[in-house]
Structure formats: C-alpha cells, structure tokens
C-alpha cells in the first residue's frame, strides 16, 4: 500500500517536472514563457492541501506569479505545531496562464504522546501474549492479541499525499471593481494516506478519496479587503489526515469555507479563515475490538458499573473522537515577488481524541 502510494507520488512529481521542464525548453516559444507579471499577493498563499488559497481554504486564485501571458511555479513548506499533532506540508505547484493550477503536496507529521502511550501498551500487551510463560495467565482474562493498529510505540506518523487541479472559470478577482461578479474556479484533490492501519483504528471508512470544490474570490479595493467562499464536496476527516467517512460509510457533503483578508499595504495582509468540518468519527477500533464498545459492555455489567461506573463513563468520553471546524487568523507578507511568508494562529479544535489543538502555523513559499 505504502509502496503504491509513493510510486504514484513519484509519477506525479515526474509529470510536474516535465511541465516545468517544458516551459524552460520552450522559453522562446511564448506559450510557456516564465512570467512573473502578477501583482503582489494576488497569487494567494499555498494551503496545506497544496492549492492556492489562504492557509486552510482554497481560493479561486491561481497560484504562481504568472499572468495569462505565461507560466510560473511555487514550492512551499508549511509547519503547524499543535499540542497533539505536528503537520509538515511540502509541495510544489505549477500555474499555467493564470487559468490552470496543478499541485502536489506531501503532508506528514508525528502524532502526540497519547499515541505513544497507546502504541506502547498495545505493543507490550502483544509481546506479553506471545510470551509462553505469561500468555496462559492473560488469556483467561479474555485478552487476545490486537491486530496492527497503525500506532507505534513512539512518533506514529500520519502521511498523506495530495494532488490537486484547479481551473479558473470566469471573473476577475482584481480588476472588475465595478461589478459584484467574483472570480470563480473549480478544483479537485485526490488524497491518499500511507498509514491505513491507523485510519482503520480511528474508524475511517476510507484512506484514499477525492474532494471537489468551487471557489469564489473577490478583492474590494475601496475597502482594501479580499473575500473568498468555497463549497467543498468531501467526506474528509481533518482534511483527510484521518481518512474519509466513518462507521456510517463514506458520505460526501458540501461544506462551506470562508476567508477574509484585509490588505495593510501592497505586500502585507491580515485575515481570518473558517472551514466547516464533519464529525464522522467517534469510536476507536483496536484491531477488531471496539475500545468504546468494550467500555460500554463493562458499563452494562451492573456489578462493574456499581464499582467503577463514573471511571468507565469518563474513559468512554476520553476515548470518543470528535472533530471541530477549523479556524485561523493569519498574517501574510511578501517581501518580494519570489517569496511569501504566512504566520498564523491555527485553531483546529479537537483532533481525534485530543481537544484544544491550537497553535502556530508558519509557511514559506518561493515563486519562480
């Protein structure tokens, strides 16, 4: 599984390299001229899904500094340090004629110490159950080996690959100041995860899936303000980092994502974003055992419940996953046309079992 994922990733990288190679080879042809004609910041930033946008929401903007007269590309590295998860996103994007955008991003990061604890426990339990001396003592207690949970004793990795495609349909976000018609683009992502066992443990229906979106973006110059709205058709849990769908299946719905940015000067913007998320996942599956089900079973035994009822109730709550909508406030600065920095405070709420995942988000983007 992992191998096929990286093979596809490799193929995409080659394809993107070929596209970038094309414009170098045909520099004199015109069609693939390297172009840096966009006005500052009108390429947007690069989101953790790899597309042009704010920090988490795609916009109708096309990435790269090119105008309709040529092509350009961007590489980015984004780092979000949250209490129970650290996200690293590395990717590249090619913008063609301010019309079409192709992107590839590799999202990865270690999970927190909670996973270490679970991983260490299951690992230890599994090795005890294979020990010829200790195993006979444990099996009468109903303990059996758990299947691979995807959770390691230390630094369990979440790894997701994302390819993206975006097409600007109509409208001009910048120059149509006498019209309310925004710039409108449609786009899609295909995302695939490497740690499929972990996503099974957390109850996701699928590890790989597509998402589609439509975005409308407009700058209101009299107010020095940009507004963007996106409808994303998806079943993703935490943008797909925790897979897609849940125990009830892989049901995609349209979710709203909204961004506002205020331009402080031609190179600096501050703003905020909001992205609706689903709440597909609840129980945790340790192999074939539903951990929450186990706790509930114990609660249903009157004697046990009388003894440790409140503890079990609390344990069940602790082991129940919830997902919150994502929010952030950001500061973006482009010292020159080749560089954009984004600093943000990301408020991602509960991720899997751990609440209050708020922390710093930093991104650096280099344009060619």
């Amino acid at each position, binding site marked *: 599984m992992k191998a096929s994922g990286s093979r596809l990733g490799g193929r995409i990288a080659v394809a993107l390299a070929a596209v970038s190679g094309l414009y170098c080879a045909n520099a004199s042809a015109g069609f693939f001229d390297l172009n840096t004609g966009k006005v500052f910041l009108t390429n947007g930033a690069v989101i953790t899904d790899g597309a042009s946008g704010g920090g988490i929401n795609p916009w109708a903007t096309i990435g790269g500094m090119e*105008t309709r007269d040529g092509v350009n590309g961007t590489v980015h590295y984004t780092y979000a340090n949250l209490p129970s998860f650290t996200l690293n996103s590395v990717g590249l994007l090619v913008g063609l004629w301010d019309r079409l955008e192709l992107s590839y991003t590799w999202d990865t990061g270690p999970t927190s110490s909670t996973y270490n604890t679970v991983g260490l426990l299951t690992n230890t339990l599994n090795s005890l159950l294979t020990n010829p001396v200790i195993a006979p003592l444990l099996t009468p207690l109903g303990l059996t080996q758990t299947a691979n949970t995807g959770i390691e004793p230390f630094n369990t990795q979440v790894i997701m690959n994302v390819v993206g495609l975006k097409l600007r349909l109509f409208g001009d976000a910048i120059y149509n100041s006498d019209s309310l018609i925004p710039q409108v683009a449609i786009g899609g992502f295909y995302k695939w995860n490497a740690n499929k066992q972990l996503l099974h443990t957390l109850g996701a229906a699928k590890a790989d899936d597509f998402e589609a979106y439509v975005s409308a973006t407009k700058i209101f110059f009299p107010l020095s303000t940009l507004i963007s709205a996106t409808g994303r058709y998806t079943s993703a849990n935490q943008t797909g980092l925790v897979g897609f769908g849940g125990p009830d299946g892989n049901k995609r719905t349209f979710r709203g994502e909204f961004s506002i940015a205020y331009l402080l000067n031609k190179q600096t913007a501050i703003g905020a974003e909001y992205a609706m998320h689903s709440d597909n996942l609840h129980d945790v599956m340790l192999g074939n055992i539903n951990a929450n089900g186990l706790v509930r079973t114990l609660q249903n035994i009157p004697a046990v419940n009388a003894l440790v009822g409140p503890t079990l109730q609390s344990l069940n709550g602790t082991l129940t996953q919830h997902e919150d909508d994502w929010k952030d406030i950001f500061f973006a600065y482009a010292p020159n046309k080749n560089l954009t920095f984004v600093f943000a405070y990301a408020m991602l709420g509960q991720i899997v079992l751990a609440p209050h995942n708020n922390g710093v988000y930093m991104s650096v983007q280099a344009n060619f």
Partner: protein
Amino acid sequence: MKPISMKPIRSSLQAFAIGVLALAATAPALADKEDFPTAKGTTPTIPGIDSDALEKFGGEEGVHKWAEALFYYIMLDNRINWIFERFGNPKRQIELNTQLETMVLGGPAKYQGASMSAAHSDLHITLTQFNAVVEAAYNACERVNTPYHVCNQLIAALAPFERVIVTR
C-alpha cells in the same frame, strides 16, 4: 521585447495613459459602452470610492505630484518604458493623467484625452504590461506618501480600464 510596428504618434496616442491603467473618454462622442469613467466622470465601483478620496490625495496638486512619480517609475521599468518612449509623450501624459485621476477621484471633469480604447487599440498591451503600470502606480503612491488605502481608491476607480486597455 517583441517588435511593435512603428505608427505615427498621433495626439490620441499621447493620451496613452496606461499609466493610469486607464482612462476613458469623457467626451461623450468618444465614449463607447466599455469606456470609463462615465459622463459624470466617476467609476461606479462596488462599493463606491470614499467621498474624500481626492482631498486625501492632496487635491489636484497632489494628484499631479503622483502622476509625475508614476512616470518616473514607468520610465525606469524596462518591461514597459520602451512602449512609452516609442508611442508616448510623458510630459503630456502626466498632464492628461492628472486630469483623469482628479476626475475619477471625484474632482472636476477636465479630461481632454482620447478614449482609452481608441488610445490603446493598436498597441497590443498585455496584462503583464498593465500590471507593471499598476506596480508603478503603487510605487508612486509610496513616493508621494499617499497612504495605501487612499491609493486603493484610485486603483478601484481605474481598474475597469483593464478591459479596454489590455487587448492581448
């Protein structure tokens, strides 16, 4: 740079105020439906530009200083200075730009130049070149210390000219 066939410099071309991104004919006879500003002289932006925009720009005198700075930056920019050298007359264009910008910011409608579509139709202006002038416009605002948000009132008023100036 791609060669552009030499054409006689006509007076209408002197109004080649791409520098302004803009321009439209005020003379009703020259105006077509895609030309701005309107007969009243302002661009119907959404939302409207601030009523005190011209005042904050330093009045007509402030706009004139800005137009001088604009052409200073345009003539330094190798992406576009050759167009202005070949087809324009910067001194005349500074005057026409002062008239036009004063007008679109809500001042008196004294613009004497040609329609923007007429002035630019033969020049094959690209969006990349247009954006270069927008950058010069922002640089000019910084040069004369016109605040960014006041500068954006002018940008908003001139932005729709992109549709008639960029023909490639």
